[in-house]
């Protein structure tokens, strides 16, 4: 599985520019589903048919990652940029980014007059080795993602864009393991989550599911001076109860807990104070659906070194398979 995680996390795919990600994921999921399609915004929708006795269940794992977009090229060939999604200035200094055409850039900022204070985003620039506007290989409107190799150390897995390539991995692995299901499962690899869960919104409008389950990362409270949060790495799949954008369907949360307990899958309950997921869009699309989220606990979200625990990933896959294998009574 680490090979798949490496392949997906190291690939390029900022929000709105997920074509390459879709091409990578498609062959991974295609053998395990009955139908596959791509909608107008670029969501990849893989359908596994049930036996007709169950519900219409939509899963959503987003393919996109945070990134940057060039807003100006200086006459010396440096790039000013704006954010795509939640990019924090303090995670940028000395980092590297990659453009769709393969160009790599180093990120730095204007001179710091006070080293205790970091500049805002508009004082950062990217150096791609150009010396003028004319010889600069990228231009205004070009998007870049971060660059960082995947590493596995014990059970800890670190990469850029674990958010949410690890959710994509959970979806793929669960569909591999899912022998049979009463439900029609619409496994959606969504676009543009990081800029406001835009892809899941339209895919859910098209699918009109009874149940929506997002597969995404969540924050943790187990690092020095963290904001108090009862989720830790290595303690199991997180069953979302609430985040800043959604209150999970109470019946669905109950089903998730019950399946985890029956199958001895470690789990923790998640209340996330900031942020939300595709489940928020699915919940209120069309006439509404019962929505929830299986979260993979993740340290350092929206930094180039997002870190998860392999045991939590396993637990998330197993929990999803248990939920999908059995009737969902809401």
């Amino acid at each position: 599985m680490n090979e798949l995680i490496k392949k997906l996390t190291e690939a390029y795919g900022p929000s709105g520019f997920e074509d390459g990600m879709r091409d990578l994921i498609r062959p991974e999921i295609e053998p395990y589903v009955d139908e596959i399609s791509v909608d107008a915004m670029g969501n990849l929708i893989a359908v596994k048919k049930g036996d007709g006795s169950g519900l219409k269940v939509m899963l959503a794992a987003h393919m996109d990652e945070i990134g940057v977009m060039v807003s100006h090229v200086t006459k010396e060939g440096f790039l000013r940029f704006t954010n795509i999604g939640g990019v924090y200035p303090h995670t940028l200094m000395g980092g590297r980014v990659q453009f769709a055409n393969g160009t790599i850039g180093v990120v730095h900022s204007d001179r710091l007059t006070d080293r205790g204070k970091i500049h805002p985003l508009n004082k950062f620039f990217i150096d791609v080795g150009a010396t003028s506007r004319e010889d600069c290989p990228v231009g205004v409107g070009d998007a870049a993602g971060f660059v960082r190799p995947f590493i596995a150390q014990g059970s800890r897995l670190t990469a850029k864009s674990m958010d949410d390539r690890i959710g994509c991995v959970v979806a793929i692995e669960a569909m591999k393991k899912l022998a049979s299901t009463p439900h029609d499962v619409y496994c959606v690899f969504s676009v543009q989550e990081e800029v406001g869960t835009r892809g899941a919104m339209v895919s859910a409008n098209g699918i009109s599911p009874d149940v929506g389950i997002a597969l995404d990362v969540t924050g943790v409270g187990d690092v020095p001076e963290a904001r108090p949060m009862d989720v830790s790495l290595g303690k199991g799949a997180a069953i979302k109860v609430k985040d800043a954008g959604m209150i999970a369907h109470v019946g669905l949360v109950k089903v998730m807990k019950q399946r985890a307990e029956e199958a001895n899958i470690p789990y923790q309950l998640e209340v996330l104070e900031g942020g939300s997921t595709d489940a928020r869009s699915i919940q209120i699309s069309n006439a509404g659906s019962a929505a929830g989220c299986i979260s993979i606990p993740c340290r350092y979200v929206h930094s180039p070194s997002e870190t998860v625990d392999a045991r939590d990933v396993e637990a998330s896959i197993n929990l999803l398979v248990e939920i999908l294998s059995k009737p969902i009574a809401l």
Partner: protein
Amino acid sequence: MNELLKNLTEAVGVSGDEKEVRLLIRDLIAKHVDEWHVDTMGNLIALKKGTGASDLCVLVDAHMDEVGLMVVDYDSNGTLKFEGVGGFDNRALLGKPVQVGPKKLAGVIGARPIHLLKASQRNSVVKMDAMRIDIGAKDKDAAKSKVKVGDRAAFVTEYEEIGPTAIGKAFDNRAGCAALVELLQAEPYPFDLYATFTVQEEVGLRGAEVVAYGIKPDAAFILESTPAYDMPTKDDVSPNVALGKGPSIYVMDRGTIQDPRLVSFITKTAVAHNIPFQIRQPGGGGTNTSAIQRTGSGIPAATIAVPGRYAHTPAMMINLDDYANVVKLAETVLRNLTPDTVKRNA
């Protein structure tokens, strides 16, 4: 003199009260389209049937409304309290003439003359709730007899042309409306073209949220006027867009990442037909594109805009060559659009 731009910008259509502009546009397009209707919100929706050469269905949108003011109360001295309809910089309001209500009564946003300002007042911005519209009424009753609470007030700027430059109010977005009118007055396209002249963009894309539901187009193009900030600066920074450098193509703003296939098709078409264009600096701002893109199960969408200086103030400025090139680029894009540009091969 471009009569179309003159008539459209001098007409009044503050968000939620777009009837005058809608009637004007209806009369301009009626004999060039096969069907038209007005929906519940007040959007004008027209269908220009295609030649049958392509089975695509394409939507082109331009919002009709402009930013303005709304009368909310009367003062005892006969002046009118007001709120903004759409976004304003308060500094752009003081001392400006306005036309109030359906009878277009002349008024002015009153300002204390500089002679009577204390030194400290000269350096501070007057807030909107401290401003009043003066219509020359002698007291509250006189004001009440002329103006109703809820009446809109709009800027008064006569359309003028100076060389390649046009000055007027509400180029945001009558420039887009004028371009769309011209597209409809042209020969039929290979496919059915739906034109939507939408209401209430300036207060949150409210007309656009509903306009595409019944149409379900394969692609959508949004015609806009985007603010140009291209005054000289001492730093090496980009103007977001500049006057005279051609149609501005959106890639990303706060509300939308434009469909990359359409963006690339538009820029390639511009290059192939020698039409100048500029990429609008990505970042803030928002247009109807975000509402239309996310209608139903999604619509590939992109935005082409006429750069305009001094948006959301009484007097805007556009370059007429930019305007003509927006019309030319949009028409060329439509005439060359094929299904393989927008349809996904599963």
